């Protein structure tokens, strides 16, 4: 198939409303997204930007669909690395489904090309972000403070 897709699923002991707030609140996001945050009005058609700790816009796009606290779809283009920017727009869908004791959060990120460097690049990031988000909502503290600990690249 000519599409690259990654799927991430995690179960978080929280409510859909709290999880939606965690996914859309800039200050809260910085706690689990390694200092990064998103800026948007979170309504269909609004612009969306992913901004680094230093204020640089890493990714941008728009909200395709927003149905709080159930479903969020973002048209997503990376801007910083030329080879990833050249791949154009990707689509990131976040789905929140309440279960008996937790909320199932599914993130599907895809781009209409294969292979995709963008999808490979985000594939390393999403598990870390989701693992941190789960720890933060369930225990009040994050598991990993740095996405790429400096000790890893001496």
């Amino acid at each position: 198939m000519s599409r690259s897709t990654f799927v991430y699923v995690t179960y978080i002991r929280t409510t859909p409303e709290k999880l939606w707030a965690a996914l859309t609140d800039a200050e809260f996001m910085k706690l689990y997204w390694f200092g990064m945050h998103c800026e948007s009005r979170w309504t269909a058609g609004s612009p969306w930007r992913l901004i680094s700790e230093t204020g640089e816009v890493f990714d941008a796009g728009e909200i395709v669909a927003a149905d709080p606290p159930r479903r969020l779809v973002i048209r997503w283009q990376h801007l910083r690395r030329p080879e990833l920017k050249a791949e154009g727009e990707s689509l990131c869908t976040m789905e929140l489904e309440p279960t008996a004791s937790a909320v199932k959060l599914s993130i599907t990120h895809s781009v209409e090309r294969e292979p995709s460097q963008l999808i490979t690049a985000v594939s390393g990031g999403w598990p870390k972000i989701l693992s941190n988000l789960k720890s933060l909502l369930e225990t009040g503290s994050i598991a990993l403070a740095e996405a790429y600990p400096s000790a890893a690249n001496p």
Partner: protein
Amino acid sequence: MTDRYPDPNLLFKALADVSRRKLLDLLHAHDGRTLSELCAHLDMTRQGVTQHLTVLEEANLVAIRRRGREKLHFLNPVPLQQIYDRWIAKFEKPRLKALTELKRRLENTDE
């Protein structure tokens, strides 16, 4: 079914089987495969592969997406990331890397 908070024991049970690890390796190499595509790589009945996939799905290691009439299987790395965060992340990476490299060279394998 899979719509409940996964029991961590299921994760380790799911990993404790060579065929299920092979299925994860196959998805790691190429994600989004159908049951038939996965069966082609395993010397096992279709029913056997289905059973292994159910165990992986209940452990939240495999996520299913539907595309028309097809069921596509994806490797979900989030539970593995949690193992990493819990037991590995705090250790010094260079030392771990050196040991992994030593093991790789001594055993002369790719992984």
